[in-house]
C-alpha cells in the first residue's frame, strides 16, 4: 500500500507556522511543501525568518502554532529526525578529529553502527570527494573541504529530506561547483532539498522552485520563470550606463520609474519602442550614454522588486 508520502510525493510540509520571540514575530503563518526529488530555494534578506523556519523544520524550535511534518512525521520526533538531514550555515564539525572520525561520530548520533556505519562513512566520503582526506584532521582542511565535510555529516544517515543553509559561504569557485554537483546528485536521486542562499545564480541553477520570505512571510513562491512572469509580466529590463553627474542620472531614472545601482540605471519596459524616449530625455539632461542592455528580468530583479532590498544586503 502506498503511503501518503509516496502518493503525494510530499516529503516536507509546513502548514501555518508561527513563531514569536517576545514582541518579534519571526515566522508569520508560513506554509510550503517540498516534494521528493525537488529542490526548493528559500530566499530572503537577513532577518527575514529563514533560520527560524529552517530550525523549526529541524525541530529545534517549538512553534507557537502551525505544523511541520517530515515524511509524514511530526518535526522533532525520532522518525522525523532520522528522515531529515541538516547542513547548518556554521561549520558544525569537530575540528580536532579526522574526517572519518567526524562522520563516525555523527553516524553514531543517528544510531548507525557496525557495517552500516562503515558503509555510510564510505558513501559520504565518496559523495563529498574526501576519500583522500579521510584521515586528515578536520581543522587542516581547506575551507571548501570543510564545507563538504559539513555537508557530508548531515548526510551520513542518508536522509530523505535535506536542509542546506547557505552551504557555499566563503567557498572558492571550484569547491562551490563541486558542491553544486553534490546537491544535483542528491536531487536526482530523489532527495527533497530546501536550499537557502544569498546567491541568485545558485538559486537559478539548483532550485526547481523558489520561495521568497521577508518579515516572516512567504511573499512569493514558484519557479524562476513564474516569479519573473508574475512580478514583471512580459516586461523587459533595460540597463543603461551614463557618463555624467550622479545626481542628474538619479533624477532622470526617478522620472521614468527606474533606479540607479552601481552607476547603472535600471528600468522595466513593455516594448522596445519605449527605449527611444528614455534616451532622448537622457540626452536633454546632459547625460552621455556609454552602454545599453536589454534583457528579461531575473530573480534578483524579482527579489529587489518584492523586498526593496538586494539579495545580498
Amino acid at each position, binding site marked *: 500500500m502506498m503511503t501518503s508520502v509516496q502518493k503525494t510525493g510530499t516529503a516536507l510540509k509546513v502548514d501555518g507556522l508561527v513563531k514569536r520571540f517576545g514582541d518579534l514575530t519571526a515566522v508569520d503563518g508560513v506554509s510550503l511543501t517540498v516534494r521528493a526529488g525537488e529542490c526548493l530555494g528559500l530566499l530572503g534578506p537577513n532577518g527575514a525568518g529563514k533560520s527560524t523556519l529552517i530550525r523549526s523544520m529541524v525541530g529545534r524550535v517549538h512553534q507557537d502554532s502551525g505544523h511541520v511534518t517530515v515524511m509524514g512525521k511530526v518535526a522533532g520526533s525520532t522518525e522525523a529526525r532520522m528522515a*531529515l538531514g541538516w547542513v547548518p550555515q556554521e561549520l558544525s564539525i569537530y575540528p580536532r578529529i579526522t574526517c572519518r572520525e567526524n562522520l563516525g561520530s555523527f553516524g553514531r548520533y543517528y544510531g548507525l553502527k557496525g557495517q552500516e556505519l562503515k558503509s555510510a562513512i564510505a558513501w559520504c566520503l565518496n559523495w563529498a570527494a574526501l576519500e583522500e582526506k579521510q584521515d586528515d584532521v578536520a581543522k587542516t582542511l581547506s575551507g571548501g573541504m570543510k564545507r563538504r565535510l559539513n555537508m557530508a555529516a548531515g548526510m551520513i544517515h542518508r536522509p530523505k529530506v535535506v536542509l542546506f543553509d547557505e552551504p557555499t559561504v566563503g567557498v572558492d569557485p571550484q569547491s562551490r561547483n563541486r558542491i553544486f554537483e553534490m546537491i544535483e546528485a542528491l536531487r536526482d536521486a530523489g532527495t527533497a532539498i530546501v536550499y537557502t542562499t544569498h546567491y541568485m545564480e545558485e538559486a537559478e541553477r539548483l532550485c526547481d522552485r523558489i520561495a521568497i520570505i521577508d518579515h516572516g512571510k512567504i511573499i512569493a513562491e514558484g519557479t524562476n520563470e513564474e516569479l519573473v512572469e508574475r512580478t514583471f509580466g512580459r516586461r523587459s529590463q533595460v540597463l543603461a550606463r551614463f557618463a555624467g553627474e550622479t545626481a542628474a542620472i538619479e533624477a532622470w531614472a526617478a522620472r521614468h520609474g527606474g533606479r540607479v545601482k552601481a552607476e547603472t540605471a535600471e528600468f522595466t519596459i513593455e516594448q522596445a519602442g519605449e527605449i527611444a524616449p528614455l534616451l532622448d530625455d537622457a540626452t536633454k539632461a546632459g547625460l552621455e550614454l556609454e552602454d545599453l542592455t536589454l534583457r528579461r528580468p531575473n530573480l534578483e530583479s524579482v527579489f529587489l522588486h518584492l523586498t526593496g532590498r538586494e539579495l545580498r544586503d
Partner: protein
Amino acid sequence: MVLSFVLPLAFFSIFATIFGRQHDSTPKVTLIVVDQDQSQASQALVKGLENESSLVVMTKPASEKKNAPTADYTAATAEAAVKAGDAPVALIIPAGFGQHPIAFGPGAGGSILQLLNDQSDMIAPQIVVGLLQKVAMTSMPSAMADEGMKYADEYVGGFTPAQKAKVDEGLEALRKLEADGKTGTGSGDAGNGSSDSGSSGSGANSTGAGIVAVNVRAVVGENKKSPMISFYAAAIGVMFLMFTASGSAGALLDEAESGTLERVLSTRVTMTKLLAGKLVFNTGLAFVQLVAMFLWGWAVFKLDFFSHLPGFAVMGLCTAFAVAAFGMLLASACQTRAQLGALSTLVILIMSSVGGSMFPRFLMPESMQKAGLLTINAWAIDGFTKVFWRDLPVMDLWPQVSVLLGVGVVLFVIARRVARRWEYA
C-alpha cells in the same frame, strides 16, 4: 594531558615530600643556649636540652671555615643571632643559676632564665618553655630534691639532725648519679622520636623516662611507613580532579558556541543522553587520574596501594562520579569558557581549602571542620583515609559513598535542568 596528569602528580609530590615523612624527621626547634653560670646544675640543664630530640642546641655559632674554632655565644651575640634569623629562640642561663636553680612557685627566689624569641614563630618558645620544665625535673633531680627538702624542712618545723643527715646523704647520692649521667633525660636518644609527642611513624613503642613514666603505643598506623602520603594523594587528587572535570565539561560550551551542539541535538541524541554520556566519560577520566595519582604514590613514596584495591576502587569511582557531575553543573551554568574558567577556579579553590585538600581538616577549628562537610573534598578525603590509614573494611565507607553518590546525582539533575536553555528556542 599535562594539566590532567603531570601537574597533579607534581603538586602531590611536593606535598608528599614536605609532609609525608614526618615520622623520620621530627620538626626540630633550633635553640641557642648561653650558659653564663657554668655550674654543675647549668651544665646538667644544657646537657638535658641537648638530649631532647625536638631541639637542636647551639652553644656557639657555626664556623665559617672548617675546623676553625668559634667562641661560645654571649647574651649579646645570641640576641643578635635571633634578630638575624639564625635561630627562633635563645636561652640565657644567668650567673648564679646553680645556687638556686629551681623554685616551686613564683617569688620563691629561683633563678630566672631569659628566653629571647622571634615573634614570627609562635610555636618555638612554647616548645622550649615546656621542655625546660621537663628537663629541669629530669636532668637536675638533686636540685629538685634539695628544693623539696627545704620546703619540707620549713613546713614540718625543721628536720632533726638525724633526718637532715639522711636527707644530705640521699642528695649526695643523687648528685653522684647526676654526675655519672645516670639520671633520666626523658626523651632517650635523639632521633628515636619523642615519647612526649607520641609520634609513631616507625611504629616503635617508646617509654618516657620522666617523673611520671609513660609508655606510648601507636594503635593506628603502627605499621605505616608514610602516613600522610595517602592523605595527600587523595587531597591533591580530588582538587585536580575537579579542575579536570570542569575543564572537560567545558567542551559542552565549545560545542554550543560552534553550533555543533545544536546539530547533535537535531539527531537522535537528546540532551539527557548527551549529558549522561559526557558524565560517564568524565567519571572515567577522573578515575584514571586518581589511579595515576595513587600509582605514583606507590611507585615513588611507597604507598601501600595494592592491598587496598577494593576500597580504593569504591572510593575512587564515587569520588570521580561526584566531581564529574560537579564539572557538568559548572559548565551548564556558564555562558562561555572564560566564565567557566573564572568560576571554576574560584569555587574549586574555596572548596579545596575548606574541604581539606590543602590543609588537613583535623587541624582546623571545629566550625571550619563542619563547613568542610559541605564539600566533595572532605567526604572523599575521609573515605580514602578510612581505606588507607585506618584499614577499615569497604562496608564502613557507606556514609562517604552515600554522600558522594547522592551529591553526584543531585548535581547532575540540576545540570540537566540548567542545560534546558540549549534544548529549544
